[in-house]
């Protein structure tokens, strides 16, 4: 993909702003328009900008994880939130509200479903990264299809430092 200096510069500046806005949407979601899904989509759009400016390498620099792991982490977080309410003796996925009053900051209210929403956010971001990785990188350079087994940071080393590619 040809890179354009203007696009590159603009995306470098815009990416953090959009990402912060997506986090804002995520955290206010319980009381104002927003939420995990919308926030995740906004962050996804930020990664599309990043991709447009610097290709898939730029995306992998920011998120040095396999997209499978990002997706899995999000689902795990959402599922564990549900289990958390079981530990507290409540039915699966019921929400609890925690309030505390630190000095100067006024009241801080935490609803446990926020973690569920964060899981949704992470999954949506992971989905966008997955699409950018497989569809984007393939189109950029059809000779270097990133396969499931040899992408950057996909080979693991075992404890003796021997490369183990999962086959």
């Amino acid at each position: 993909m040809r890179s354009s200096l203007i696009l590159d510069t603009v995306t470098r500046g815009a990416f953090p702003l959009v990402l912060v806005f997506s986090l804002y949407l995520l955290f206010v979601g319980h009381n104002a328009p927003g939420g995990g899904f919308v926030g995740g989509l906004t962050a996804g759009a930020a990664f599309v900008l990043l991709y447009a400016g610097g290709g898939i390498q730029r995306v992998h620099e920011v998120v040095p994880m396999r997209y499978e792991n990002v997706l899995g982490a999000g689902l795990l977080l959402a599922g564990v939130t549900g289990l958390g309410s079981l530990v507290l003796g409540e039915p699966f996925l019921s929400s609890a509200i925690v309030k505390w009053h630190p000095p100067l900051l006024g009241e801080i209210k935490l609803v446990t479903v926020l973690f569920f929403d964060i899981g949704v956010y992470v999954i949506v971001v992971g989905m966008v990264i997955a699409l950018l990785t497989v569809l984007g990188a393939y189109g950029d350079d059809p000779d270097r299809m990133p396969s499931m087994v040899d992408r950057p940071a996909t080979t693991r080393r075992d404890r003796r430092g021997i490369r183990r590619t999962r086959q």
Partner: protein
Amino acid sequence: MESKGYWVPIALVALHFVIAAIAPLGARSLGRRIFYVCAVAPAATAIWAAAASPGILEGRPVDASLGWLPAIGLEISLRVDAFALVMIALVSGIGTLIFVYSVSYFGHHAGTDRDLGRFASRLTAFAGAMLGLVLADNLLVLYVFWELTSITSYLLIGYEDEKGSARAAALQALLITASGGLVMLAGFVLIGEAAGTYEISALLANPPVTGLAAVGALLTLAGAFTKSAQVPFHIWLPGAMAAPTPVSAYLHSATMVKAGIYLIARFAPVFAVVAGWRPLVLGVGLATMLWGGLRALRQHDLKLLLAYGTVSQLGFMMTLFGAGLGEATHAAVVLLLAHAMFKAALFMVAGVVDHQTHTRDIRRLSGVGRRMPALAVVGTIAAMSMAGLPPLFGFIAKEGAYETYLHADLAAPWPTVMLIGLVAGSVLTFAYSYRFVWGAFADKPMARQRKQVGASSPAPTWAFLAPPALLAALTVATGIVPASVDHLVNAAAQALAGVEEIHLALWHGFTLALLLSMVTVGLGVGLVWVREPFSALQERWGGWPGSQAAYEWSLRALNVVSDRVTGVVQSGSLPVYLAVILLTAVLLPSSALLALPRVPGPSALAENGAQLLVAAGIIVAAVSLIFSQRRFISVFLMGSVGYGVAVLFVLQGAPDLALTQFLIETLSVVVFVLVLRFLPPRFSRRPWRLGQAMRVLTAGAVGAFVFFMALIAGGSRPDSATPVAEEFLARSIEEAGGHNVVNVILVDFRGYDTLGEITVLVIAALGVAALVVASARRDGVADTGDRPDEDRVDGTGPADARQELGAQVGAEVEH
């Protein structure tokens, strides 16, 4: 009733899974000593059970309960009664020994450089699942743990996953036990619905008597028979010997294969009166006992010999528990304990022999007994208990079984048939017990060409020998002083079948049962005497098509059928797929709409001019889409339609929807653009125009349907009902602490739906990614490395499994 320590059983089960989760990390620094850490979970369980046992044996079970989905009667309820104590002794008591044994087993073993953490994790997870299974007091919870043991068993059998035969055996075990489990689930639902409760203790106290409940009881037998390896489902158990020996000793002799027995034990006292139950259970159990014994006499591999012996003994237990009679249940509990002690010990002994000599083939082993006398003593004691010789616990178990059927309260031919069958089965057991001892330890001056091993192998360490030695010592102790387990056995039988007390004793005087025991030993010695001609006879019989052939045939048939179905359903044409989906969505609900008495008209076409303007824009974009020739223009127009709808949402005051819609449309366009790079810029212009007409028609039908659907849905609320929105709004702040009701609905009120949706989203994203990668590889674009065996390794599909099973397991196991 809730005792004080009500949370303890749940915490103990959870502890297993927590340790299972951290075991892979711990193994990096601890190596094989990670098994000591894992042993903490079963050891803690055993200690707690021992501490709590006085009250439980008095008849005061410990109950624990936690709401999971209380709305549909699904609660995580556990109950520790006296029979559960017996099972804990097996699951956690023997489990602890297995973990200690594993430390030595994996030292200097061929599997040392394998990832031990993974193995330890799976074994601990299995221990937790098995504990949950035997404690569960809710049918659905029992089912969940039941399938968890199947899955962990699958992972453990397939531990050496580079071996095709191990993968095939693991898959076979999973397919057989899980399909039986599904049938059992159907039975559970029938029973639960008939009884009005899924709580096991409640429905056994007040059993449902309807015909459906009887059908349900018979269906649960499918689960019990497959799990406990009864004929004709027994074939997976010998295959499961592909697992490391600790797994064979733990899952495939002491615990998991007893899950079916456990279920029968719980249900038989209530459901044995169901027509067909006794003939089925007693018949299958007896056939299993005899068939397993016959097969065991043909094996040359020590573990396979023991595996068929286990099949035989499981059949034995089935014949006792299955009758549902008080005295038989009592005898069965004794047998359950006896078998766990001697068979786990025997497997561990076989593992030691394998570990020290690197073979389990009795045609190659020679002189092991002289080289390792302590091991030989342990193995011989355990085998003698299996053969039913006094003064060992196995003798008491067998006496009890004979005594039961000498005066069982059953219809005329059954007691006689059972007695003859049990004696015949015990004769076979005697013979294969001898075969084990002779095969493992004897000096064989035979003229075989094979290289003999054993006489020069290193003796095992004391730590390695201690777990089986402890079990053998227990066998002797409980045999000589049976009164020591009297209380436990009586309380367990009491918890199951409400039987009056029976006292165990080594010596009952000269009874008919003793005579039968003497006959058994006599015939057993005779069978050992004629073993050469007997095995020649068996060789001549062998080779008839058995369960293995049926299993392979059904897998093949499944492949053929799914090939055909796929060929018909998956034509490969994207327009056809879309048309099928869309037309289904249109036709099914609209037939219901047509049946409505009246269709409410629109209250107003539009509320303001802005709406009309936007709508006009949408329509223009949608109609131009039909005439667009260029793909990029089409994507652009579709995006315009989506943005137009989003603007409508803004005008209606739905910021959440609008925001989502804008973002979705943006990302959709981006994804389209990424894909468009692979496609020609223009649509193909084929002379055949019918296809396009069909598309326009389909699209129009969908549009019209959505229009009327929205109209009718909006206008069809009964006037009296309060809108659900009001209740959502009212409850959103006080219950969920949120002011944005849309978000509260998504993450709280309908949290389950969202969890399901995001799971689908993850699967879809992974699926799309895998498809793109796979198609790119197929096109030869990026086939970077030559991996000739990659497909074989990646796809343990039924086709591979079938071939490998036929080639390897079938050849090794059945012949």
